[in-house]
């Protein structure tokens, strides 16, 4: 009961943060709304019982990536964006397209819920640190290592591009 109420509260905060992210005109307000979204997502993970993922969500996304975003916005001193009248194409193609996409994804999720399987709130069975470690470093070791190498290559690419002198 408490879990359901908390889930709804944090889900609402999450959606409100996401809407605010789009509505705000100043980049720093948008970035901070994104932090709110990340934080409430992490609380939803916590409610599901995935405590390790929740902590990592806060440390990596809210604590590291978004701090860099805010840092860059501060450094570039980006001002408030100008509001345009909006494009016709976006209005007549984008809005129906978005409705169709949301409807399709929603319908697929609802109709396929039997196949996908569900999880009770707070009953996730593989959320603990030990279990995640076992999955990452035993069952899925090769994909995990390949992903690490991929990220390393991306980092080196960023360094090379950043150092290039024109």
């Amino acid at each position: 009961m408490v879990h359901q109420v908390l889930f709804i509260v944090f889900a609402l905060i999450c959606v409100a943060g996401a809407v605010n992210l789009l509505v705000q005109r100043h980049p720093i307000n948008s970035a901070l709304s994104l932090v709110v979204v990340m934080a409430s997502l992490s609380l939803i993970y916590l409610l599901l019982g995935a405590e390790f993922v929740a902590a990592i969500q806060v440390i990596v996304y809210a604590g590291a990536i978004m701090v860099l975003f805010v840092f860059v916005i501060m450094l570039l001193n980006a001002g408030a964006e100008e509001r345009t009248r909006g494009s016709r194409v976006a209005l007549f193609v984008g809005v129906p397209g978005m409705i169709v996409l949301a409807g399709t994804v929603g319908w697929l999720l609802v109709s396929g819920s039997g196949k996908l399987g569900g999880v009770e709130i707070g009953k996730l069975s593989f959320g603990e640190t030990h279990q995640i470690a076992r999955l990452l470093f035993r069952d899925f070791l090769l994909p995990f290592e390949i992903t690490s190498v991929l990220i390393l290559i991306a980092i080196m690419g960023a360094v090379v591009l950043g150092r290039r002198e024109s």
Partner: protein
Amino acid sequence: MDIKTFIIAAVIKIALVVFIMLTGVAYTTWLERKLIGRIQNRWGPTRVGPFGLLQPLADGVKFILKEDLLPDYVHKGLFILAPMLALVMSLISIAVIPFGETITVAGHTTALQISGMIQAGGHISDINIGLLIILGVTSIGVYGVALAGWSSNSKYSLLGSLRASAQMISYELSLGLSLVGILLLSGSLSLREIVFSQSGHWFVAGHDTHVPHWFIFPQIVGFFIYLMAAYAETNRIPFDMPEAETELVAGYHTEYSSMKFAMFFMAEYVNMFTVACLASLLFFGGWHGPHLAFLPPIGQALLPVVYFAAKVFFFIFLYIWIRGTLPRFRYDQLMAFGWKFLLPLAIANIIVTSLIVAWGA
């Protein structure tokens, strides 16, 4: 334990811990002024009360009564939010810190930790990601400093907060990596479990060395990395570039006055306490210490808390001592030290520790 007693116990614990913490913060400022005074061959505060002991109270009254200036051209919402964010985030970390094992008051046994609970079988349950929560909350605390400088709309504040965020991001890496050695040795992220795994003595080749089983001995390199990175995280001398008064007036809190400034000040000191608590929990066995059999039962019950408080006091003293001794780094030295020395050293420490742990297993 039913929900009612749990909530009552939790509220009492929160009120008590926050009260003790904030009093501790107030008297740390007194201690700091006294000690720095002695180091510099002067008296420090002497006028208010005996030995200037009422000085923190007078300071508090002054902070509350001073005019709270809100400069023009600041980003109002964020300017007000930033000090609150800094203080709240620093106080949250206290919630997961265990101060001792358990205490029994009027027939109710409770864990000496805000987030600790006694389960049905008398087993104490702790948040099993306690260490990660502290790291996460610390990383959110960066926003307080970053937003304060940006929203002040002043060049000193902005430069101070840019330095602060760059410094905190850089040293967070070494800080996190320096703790991995502890995790490898204890096999847990729960602070209570980490302390329990440090009870007893070290055995070398089956021989009792009578040296306490604290992680400082195998992790001395990790401890020094932790100490230096944590001092940089709290923006204290010799890493206090963000508020270097000779070049930046007062850094990110230049434009703040009255209680809003006091909030940043309190946040800094609460963060110092968190660092000191973590250092004692992770490297110095938390509340473990020699057993004194001659004490009465009440003394026996409080002894672990006294040991813990003594260790925390030592680290607070160290902070002040270093402030009175060392000059400030230059900015490029600070960055080079973090990235070119601490980070590789932390990675080497992890490799060596994991090899030893794997060899022993």
